[in-house]
């Protein structure tokens, strides 16, 4: 069965304003397959390009070389003929709950945005209450504004918003790094639940190996824009082959409680 997302030989770099010397590649010669219904962790330190990889994989950033395909078709093809479908089937949850929502929009309005943009209709309150219930929140927060809610609640809303259009793939970029420990566990459990309930493909970026080890069956390790190791999480973390991976695991274990 072909993978849902197929990336091969992909190169990406950010464009410089009129500079004659091109910037260095942020992502180099990347090849990766993401199968449907899987959970993938993308691990790396700052500057590794892990957030960039997510943007390229879902078509928010255009790669310069190589191939990125979603459901058998090139991203370019999607963007030309049916961009809305591509967007609908790929959604993102971001790191900072407070920055994920427009502070001037009520929750009701914010939650309705994806459906309004992609399905050209206004979702009913009943629908939105259902979306909120799915993430463990009540409908009473619909008229409220982001500043009145906690980080954990906002992150759940971000997840509800992403799920509102029924995506196939959910990309989560450091979804719990900005949350208190006690709330982290709640949101991680939530991600696990919705993934199994909705049959989602979950791709999670995290610098925290502990979080990745709990949620992701597969993992890739990025260093300076290159995949240095990939495989089943249990194997990679238990017996890392690459020295960089090994140093990450050692450092993470040093401060791990378990």
């Amino acid at each position, binding site marked *: 069965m072909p993978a849902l997302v197929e990336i091969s030989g992909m190169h990406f770099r950010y464009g410089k304003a009129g500079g004659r010397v091109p910037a260095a590649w942020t992502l180099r010669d990347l090849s990766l397959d993401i199968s449907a219904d899987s959970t993938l962790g993308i691990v790396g330190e700052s500057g590794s390009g892990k957030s960039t990889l997510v943007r390229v994989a879902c078509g928010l950033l255009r790669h310069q070389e190589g191939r990125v395909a979603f459901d058998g078709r090139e991203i370019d093809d999607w963007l030309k003929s049916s961009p809305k479908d591509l967007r609908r089937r790929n959604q993102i949850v971001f790191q900072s709950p407070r*920055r*994920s929502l427009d502070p001037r929009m009520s929750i009701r309005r914010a939650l309705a945005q994806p459906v309004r943009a992609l399905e050209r209709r206004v979702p009913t309150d009943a629908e939105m209450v259902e979306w909120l219930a799915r993430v463990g929140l009540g409908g009473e927060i619909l008229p409220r504004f982001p500043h009145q809610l906690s980080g*954990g609640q906002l992150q759940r809303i971000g997840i509800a918003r992403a799920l509102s259009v029924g995506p196939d793939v959910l990309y989560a970029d450091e979804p719990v790094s900005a949350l*208190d420990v006690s709330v982290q566990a709640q949101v991680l459990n939530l991600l696990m639940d919705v993934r199994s309930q909705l049959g989602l493909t979950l791709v999670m970026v995290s610098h925290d190996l502990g979080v990745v080890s709990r949620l992701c069956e597969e993992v890739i390790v990025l260093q300076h824009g290159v995949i240095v190791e990939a495989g089943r999480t249990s194997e990679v973390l238990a017996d890392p082959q690459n020295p960089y991976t090994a140093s990450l695991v050692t450092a993470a274990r040093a401060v791990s409680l378990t």
Partner: protein
Amino acid sequence: MLDPAHTIAANVSAALPVGMVDEELPVGPPKRRRSAVRFPIPLVLGGMLVSIFVLVALLSFFWTPYDPKAINVPDRLLPPGSDGYIFGTDKLGRDVVTQLMLGARSSLYVSVLSTTVALTVGALFGLFVAGCGPRWQGPLTRVADVGLAIPGILVALVLATKLGPGSTTAILAIITWFIPVAARVTIGPAKQILALDYVEAAFAYGRTRRFVLMNHVLPNIAPLLIVLASVMFAAAILIEASLAFLGVGVQPPTASWGRFLNEAQPLLEAAPSLMYFPGVAIVLTVLGFNLLGDGLRTVLDPQQARTGMM
């Protein structure tokens, strides 16, 4: 003479929108700050002064103590407090109060028109530049910077020689002066907002750049633009008066505080009060707008702070 660009930039920089506040670890639900809004003196005072100015200017269309065109040479240069002339008369015997009211009309007309146009065009251009790709953003920002660097008074004088003096020239000069200011002030914060997650999220669910700029960026920099507007009004009034003072602004018989001031100069010994009245009028009006801008920024700022991190 004051440089409006810097004043404006300094004044509005504090009114940055939400989302800019850097967050570390979350604090749980934001604590509602006890309404410790110190009595907003600048806002109230500014609001009062501005209201008086606007009302007087509007009133002048319907009523003035004396006929605006009436020249009464025998009654010239009467001191304030004279019978029937509270503030006295000018060199042509015209009532000072009437002249002040008419001058307010010019100031209002010129400043409202020029500020509105400059702000709209400048802000839209600024938004456009902020949303540009890396290739064009640099050069276009430089264009705005260049516009900022050109001394406005020079532009006004050049325009005056080309088009002749008058209110239109004054308006055009102020517009040309202010558009780069509005653009430059908009570009920075707009770019910062475009880097925020909720903008990225909007792109992720298919919104166009135009939609994002108008529906996500613009509302969030609106407080900043409001503050900018009030500061621009103040500057515009001052510029209009200056241009009139120099003789390139509003021409007779249309009244202007600036020209009033100019004409009162040679009469300093004969009737010193003639300098005070237009001067005070200009000062109070400009002060009013500046206070208003200051007050608005204070009022809008803590509101923003409340919506961000505590």
